[in-house]
């Protein structure tokens, strides 16, 4: 007789497999069609890298790609720096007055719908652009840095909380000054958390559409806003190619992120 398995609920396995397939099927289709030689998105015309060449040769795409990467680089660097400091400030010490307020404020971008933040930034930055006369990428970098903070903060904080506090005590016991203890023990152990946070922040910045759409000045398209602007009744093969390239970049970063967070946690 078959063993009674209480964890095998009828139909669950089927739904699960279908769900995972459904998650991947559209993405896989898009990737496949990015190699389509035909300029119709519906008909398969053989394998070709034509659309990658078209996208790469398009000056608007080049500009948007460079802008996307530059903004993501600056925003993740800034967000990770301030998030690391904030994580150090809000962990590994007792509770203090206002620590919950700090936590709430740091995570605020996760709680407010992005469209609301976007219009709020539009209002404020539009005035500031007129006031200061500056319309460069700085506004986008500032906005991206701000909403990336919680994404950098959370993995760093998690890493710090998983770290044995007696390690710094042991360093002090072995004659390390507080700075030496931080430099030689806390920081090296924190590096995977910081790297993970930086990568998440980078991916989040790279993906952003809404806030960028509202904050950007004329001629400041990033890849996502460029693609949104290109949308007609169907997705063009060129957009498929750009999407696939972005997808590969994101996957590479995420794989690195996974590898990093899966390394042994300090005990």
């Amino acid at each position, binding site marked *: 007789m078959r063993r009674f398995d209480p964890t095998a609920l009828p139909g669950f396995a089927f739904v699960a497999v279908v769900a995972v397939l459904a998650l991947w099927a559209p993405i896989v289709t898009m990737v496949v069609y990015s190699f389509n030689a035909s300029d119709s998105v519906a008909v398969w015309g053989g394998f070709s890298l034509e659309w990658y060449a078209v996208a790469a040769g398009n000056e608007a795409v080049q500009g948007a790609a460079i802008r996307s990467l530059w903004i993501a680089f600056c925003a993740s660097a800034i967000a990770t720096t301030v998030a690391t400091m904030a994580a150090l400030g809000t962990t590994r010490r007792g509770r203090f007055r206002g620590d919950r307020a700090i936590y709430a404020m740091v995570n605020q971008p996760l709680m407010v719908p992005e469209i609301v933040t976007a219009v709020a930034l539009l209002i404020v930055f539009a005035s500031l652009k007129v006031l200061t006369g500056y319309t460069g990428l700085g506004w986008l970098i500032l906005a991206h840095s701000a909403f990336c903070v919680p994404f950098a903060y959370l993995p760093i904080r998690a890493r710090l909380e998983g770290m*044995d506090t*007696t390690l710094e*005590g042991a360093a002090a*016991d072995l004659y390390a*000054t507080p700075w030496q203890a931080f430099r030689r023990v806390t920081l090296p*152990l924190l590096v995977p958390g910081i790297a993970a946070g930086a990568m998440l922040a980078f991916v989040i910045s790279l993906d952003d559409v809404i806030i960028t759409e509202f904050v950007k000045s004329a001629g400041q398209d990033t890849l996502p806003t460029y693609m949104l602007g290109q949308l007609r009744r169907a997705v063009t093969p060129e957009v498929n190619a750009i999407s696939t390239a972005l997808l590969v970049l994101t996957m590479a970063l995420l794989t690195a992120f996974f590898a990093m967070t899966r390394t*042994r946690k*300090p005990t």
Partner: protein
Amino acid sequence: MWGRRHVATLAKRGTAAQPSSMTGDGSPAVEARGARKAFGGFVALQGVDLAIAAGEFFTLLGPSGCGKTTLLRLIAGFEGPTEGSIHIAGQDVTADPPHRRPVNTVFQSYALFPHLSVFDNVAFGLRMLGRGDVDARTAAMLDLVALSDFAQRKPAQLSGGQQQRVALARALAPDPQVLLLDEPLSALDLKLRRQMQRELKRLQGETGITFVFVTHDQEEALTMSDRIAVMEAGRILQVGTPRAVYDEPATRFVAGFIGESNVLAGSVRDGIADLPGGRVPVAAPDGPVQVAIRPERVRLVASGTDGALGATLAQAVYHGTDLTAHLVLPDGTEVAARLPADAEPGAPGSAHGLAFDPGDLRVLAD
């Protein structure tokens, strides 16, 4: 194996470290004066006075929450006392942070740096002190704990016992005046623990460093220590040699915590204690009294024997090496008697007499 004190580097950093000759000048290696520690409303330590002599293997023994670890953390400098002061080798170090105190700690969790190799862990303190002979001394320490072959491993690649020895080597490497050990053996299994107990004792003998050892295991305390301080509820109840705290427990708590004890309550008049089941001579002033007797000091005799307490057998439990008879006195007090394994105390309910040498009775302070 190496010079007993390398304090020049510590002195250079303006620490309280002193040459060993000065620890022999009569000032204790570690001294707590009226050390009190409160965490908010909770008082972990209620004004402790304690002096630990140089070269001593000193144990703080007590159940969890008795304040022994807090006292250790006060000595290490991880906590500041709410009141009172801590002195190391005659110097007041109360205001000194941990990195300026010539003491090292073996942590309960070992607290080995997971990102550093065994070698770098052991060398850590030496490097912080800016010592010149880091490589040679680290190698010597690894040799001392028989881990030379594991120098390049990471802590996670070692067994529990090996991690324990790295923690020891790391703490001993800077040649501290005092080594603090916070329940260092609690994570090891029984066999390894026995082995490490002997190892620790050997290391202490070879290095001559003062060891302050925290444990809740009374057997461990008895086998390893020169002196033991028994603690409960933030106080030190008794300080003495293992023999003294075992044979002459000062309080009911000490009697019960170290080894097994039968505690009998009664009242004294003219040197004779009126105990449940009989009368026994006791050296105590008139009034109510509590006396303790170890189970192995209790003999079973025929019911009604002169000078014996009348008792009824409740249960006999066979242990292999011996046999414990659980008896009940007329007032319901339970008494355990450790008998030879071949003793035959009879069936439950049978009447017996409990006899003992009056010299084995301990009058308890509370």
